[in-house]
């Protein structure tokens, strides 16, 4: 997936979210740290342009303290910044790659500390099908790929890696 395809995909995801959330006043967008926020930053920018001057509440969630493998290894946390309540809101969670589903499981747990949402949806840039370990599926998918476990999917971002690109290693 090159830079242009990536930009088009992000645009499509943004329009799809907007289509399902016409009444954006009850919707919030939350990106998952660390790499999901590169997707959510762009989706939020896209949506903001479409609905200006209205702003959609946007937060960042770190799930380190909720991981189910914390017993094996202590990881250093990233910053969580959700300066609003999600009580009775429609939450759109955004991450870059959906693989085993364990990150999203942790994110659903972590979200509860900020209130009881009316509904949670999942938006994913790259869905690695057939590799799920938990019953979790995306509502918005950028691209589905069939990959074997030994392969790796890497999403590169200009701000961090010098170019926008998705590669299968």
């Amino acid at each position: 997936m090159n830079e242009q395809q990536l930009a088009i995909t992000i645009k499509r995801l943004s329009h799809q979210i907007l289509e399902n959330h016409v009444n954006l006043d009850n919707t919030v967008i939350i990106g998952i740290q660390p790499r999901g926020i590169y997707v959510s930053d762009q989706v939020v920018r896209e949506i903001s342009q479409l609905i200006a001057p209205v702003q959609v509440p946007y937060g960042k969630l770190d799930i380190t303290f909720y991981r189910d493998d914390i017993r094996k290894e202590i990881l250093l946390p990233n910053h969580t910044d959700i300066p609003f309540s999600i009580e009775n809101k429609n939450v759109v969670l955004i991450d870059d790659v959906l693989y085993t589903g364990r990150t999203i499981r942790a994110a659903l747990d972590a979200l509860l500390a900020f209130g009881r949402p009316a509904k949670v949806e999942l938006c994913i840039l790259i869905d690695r099908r057939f590799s799920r370990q938990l019953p979790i599926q995306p509502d918005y998918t950028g691209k589905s790929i069939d990959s074997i476990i030994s392969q790796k999917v890497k999403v590169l971002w200009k701000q961090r890696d010098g170019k926008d690109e998705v590669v299968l290693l």
Partner: protein
Amino acid sequence: MRLSVKHLLGIRDLTRQDIEIILDTARQFKEVLQRPIRKVPSLQHITIVNLFFENSTRTRISFELAEKRLSADTINFTAGGSSVSKGETLLDTVNNILSMKVDMVVMRHSASGAPHFLAKHIPAAIINAGDGINEHPTQGLLDAFSMREKFGTLEGLKVAIIGDIMHSRVAMSNIYLLKKMGAEIMVAGPPTLIPQYIREAFDVRVEYNLRKALEWCDVANVLRIQLERQNQVLFSSLREYSLAYGISKRLLDSLPKEITIMHPGPINRGVELDSDAADSKQSIILQQVENGVAVRMAVLYLLSGGRELN
């Protein structure tokens, strides 16, 4: 990235990177404490015993709260009313508690080096909550966290530690930590309460005049006069100490710049710090207490690692 140590016995053993990891992690835990639900499940597989062989309010409550916010199971032990009064040794007491499957030990003890002794003999992770006149590492860390929060960095910050340096484990942990993080340190107080070779040993400034110390510093970390540790007469009366080294609002207002006041608590009001100075805008004493929980969560979280379920 992980800590270079298995226990937190003192700041002396930590690297600069360890300190940065702890302070950065504490920042994230401070955010956790602002959430509507201030609790994470990270340590729900861990049991922690709080062994307090010496009195404490702040530190014990702060550790207990930190443990509960991390979902750990906790047991509290205080020396009064225990078998310690029947003559049980420290190692026996701890081994008996550990045989009930405890993963981490938080300990305060009046003997310097008690947690170091324990670390050599038991498998659990040990966190020193103050040992005699040696160190109080989590206090040093929360002081550093509070200073960094206020000033952005510790590099080049001028910190005066004022009062009973001789008997203060808080002073020791502060000196080790601030030195590693590149701050400038001055110790100030009456000559009888400042160890003679401290300038050579730690490369710190020494000042016997309170006003000069306050004029020099950005932050004054004011120590408690430890009435329980004064078995010799090191100054003639509390009133005399207060006249020469007590900090009042009037004194603070007469300084050329506004400095920040810190105190590890409990304050002897009217001795080392007047009420109007302790409660002034320049004081961040209550923020220190708030930050203490986040810093202790970070320490417990980082030292809990690597335990596979069997």
